[in-house]
């Protein structure tokens, strides 16, 4: 066993220790012992000892395997190859122990036994195996009904919140939408043919538990168009202190409905009449604050679907972007044809025009929102912008003049 005096200092403390855990496995897995050794070296030198590999994979796929090699293979032979396998997770990360044990059996046999539950995109991450183990591991996985996920310039494994499986706020079936879109784009998930990554995330409501607005090129966030459902007797119970705000998730004994809910409504669309809560729903911007505060009194409406937002990514390269509204409301019912078609149209336009490593949000910045909207057949709607432009530098196209000559505005033709 390698000596790890620095890492040993991470064994103490109340939060679960990865060092303690890895040390349990090290005696039976030489690769894990070597990983601890190399990590100790990194802690001493304050530098990484990994090299990127770009070629390894399983036959037929260009996704799901990330090549990794130690730059100290003579010292740590167990890390000579230490590739990652991404296993596409089931919607909302629900498991049975039987299914998990099958996965772990495969990984104990063909890999290091180290994993992440889960990676940033959502996949189960198997960390560390040799090139020759990839194909046998893959075949055992598919025999048990599992497949590997996306990586590289491809559709990435879509992910979703727990939705209607365990949440009263979900405005559509995030699990089924995630599953169906994943199935629809299997070819593009495994055979990278896009300019760069394309991530789909499905959140059931504007609380956005999977951070779709920040972490997905295409963000489907649940929304309702009708009235917030109110149980007035429960509102009274909150006023009386019988019910705790946020279901008990805050150290606040009694909710002050006027100060904590009504006064903090960003659109000021609610008020109290005695002990009755009134909402002018037409002016509600569905921020979720009142619903979060009083989960037993308020629920989203029943005329539900999702908003499609597009373009978010981390700061590389033009600076971080959040997704912005492109379709304010889309009905989300099986088989989700409208969303599948929109996704295909967008990825096709982006693949045609995007440069290597250019995310769809950056391409739209480069070519313009009009070019994008026209290409995918979406009309301009005010919900897309926070504010119209402040400059007078706008363009007129031939189509605008033709429409004008025909006595109509261009975009009323759709």
């Amino acid at each position: 066993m390698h000596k790890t005096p620095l890492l040993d200092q991470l064994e103490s403390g109340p939060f679960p220790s990865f060092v303690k855990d890895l040390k349990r496995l090290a005696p039976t897995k030489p690769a894990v012992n070597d990983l601890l050794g190399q990590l100790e070296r990194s802690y001493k030198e304050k530098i990484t000892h990994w090299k990127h590999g770009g070629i390894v994979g399983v036959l037929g796929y260009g996704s799901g395997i990330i090549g990794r090699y130690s730059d100290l293979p003579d010292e740590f032979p167990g890390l000579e190859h230490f590739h990652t396998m991404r296993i596409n997770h089931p919607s909302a990360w629900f498991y049975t122990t039987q299914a998990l044990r099958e996965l772990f059996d495969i990984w104990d046999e063909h890999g290091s036994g180290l994993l992440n539950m889960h990676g940033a995109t959502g996949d189960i991450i198997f960390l560390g195996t040799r090139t020759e183990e990839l194909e046998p591991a893959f075949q055992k996985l598919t025999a048990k009904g599992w497949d590997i996920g996306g990586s590289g310039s491809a559709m990435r494994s879509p992910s979703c919140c727990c939705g209607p499986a365990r949440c009263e706020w979900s405005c559509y079936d995030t699990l089924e939408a995630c599953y169906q879109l994943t199935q629809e784009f299997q070819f593009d998930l495994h055979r990278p043919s896009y300019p760069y990554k394309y991530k789909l995330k499905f959140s059931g409501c504007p609380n956005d538990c999977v951070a779709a607005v920040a972490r997905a090129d295409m963000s489907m966030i649940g929304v309702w168009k009708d009235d917030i459902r109110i149980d007035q007797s429960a509102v009274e119970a909150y006023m009386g202190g019988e019910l705790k705000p946020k279901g008990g998730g805050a150290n606040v004994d009694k909710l002050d409905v006027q100060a904590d809910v009504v006064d903090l409504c960003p659109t000021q669309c609610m008020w109290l009449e005695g002990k009755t809560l009134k909402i002018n729903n037409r002016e509600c911007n569905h921020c979720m604050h009142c619903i979060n505060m009083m989960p037993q009194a308020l629920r989203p409406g029943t005329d539900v679907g999702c908003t499609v937002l597009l373009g978010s990514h981390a700061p590389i390269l033009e600076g971080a972007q959040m997704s912005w509204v492109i379709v304010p409301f889309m009905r989300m019912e099986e088989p989700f044809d409208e969303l599948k078609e929109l996704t295909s149209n967008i990825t096709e336009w982006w693949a045609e025009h995007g440069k290597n490593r250019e995310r769809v949000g950056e391409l739209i910045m480069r070519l313009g929102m009009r070019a994008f909207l026209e290409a995918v057949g979406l009309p301009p709607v005010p919900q897309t912008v926070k504010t119209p432009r402040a400059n007078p530098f706008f363009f007129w196209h031939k189509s605008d003049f033709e429409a004008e000559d025909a006595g109509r505005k261009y975009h009323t033709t759709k």
Partner: protein
Amino acid sequence: MSERITDIGPPHYSKFLPPVIKENYGKWKYHTIPEPGVLIHVSETGDELISVRVASPRLITTLFARDLCDIADKYCDGYLRFTSRHNVEFLVSDKSKLEGLKAELVQRGLPKGGTGHSVTNIVHTQGWVHCHTPAIDASGIVKAVMDDLFEYFGSHELPAQVRISLACCLNMCGAVHCSDIAICGVHRTPPTIRHEVLRHLCEIPTTIASCPTGAIRPHPDKTLKSVIVNEERCMYCGNCYTMCPALPCFDSEKGGVALLVGGKVSNAKSPPMFSRLAVPYIPNDPPRWPDTVVTIRRILIKYAENALKWERVGEWVERIGWERFFEVCEIPFTFQHIDDYKFQAYDTYRTSMHFKF
């Protein structure tokens, strides 16, 4: 190829849902959080599901994961799930098993929490454990920070929920740019060029194309078959090193931690917000990064003391103003805080759910 199975995608989630979820799918009425780490969802049918949320270090072994399975078999009929922040959730259908589960978690040293107004698990990347471009480790810093903030994981003491995330370099695999507190690894050294190796290992055009800021050019001396780097344009992302191993750009001394604060993704009250630079650089100090830990604690405590009820970190900072934030948190303001990187008309696009039908 005929015997190979491909493109089957993930298994359908319905295979993994406990019966109480199958029966109440889409029928949930409300939830309560009777104590930190315990959620009770109540259905229109009157059925209840108890979820017990537990911390996980994200980087785990199959031994640890099998332990989780043993617990789920004993108390949850074999059903469990993971959250988007790497917590484990034990799904208890039989109320009578809750106390036993809680006792066993204590005995195994598995902390429950991460609900409501807590600091929940830190979303993070691989760091020195498995990444080729990190400026910092991930798991070690996360462990050190969570040990220090442990009291806030298992309580609801804070004015609102606090989401901390870590990315080990500015490529931000973890997309941490909308977190209440973001820990981001930063390099500060342009690549050194190993000309004698580069000509054998790397394709010149693809190496040049790898640079996002166009800082790499062919070497004027064509016989060298190498490149030059305009160091002023380099922002140390390491992409060239990904393409070409002859361009190492990391050193032991200059890498470290940057802290960004005030981001959120939820639409509650205020729109989603980006995290903004608070501390541009804290030197690497393994194994426990004490400066980083102390600075994060100071920001969190100042927030907890000064924010109004329900206010997220970013909402608090916006209310008091950034100049006050730097003053209160005793953080010096530097040239690095002033943005001089390109950005576009993008800020006119709506990034929120705040609109009307």
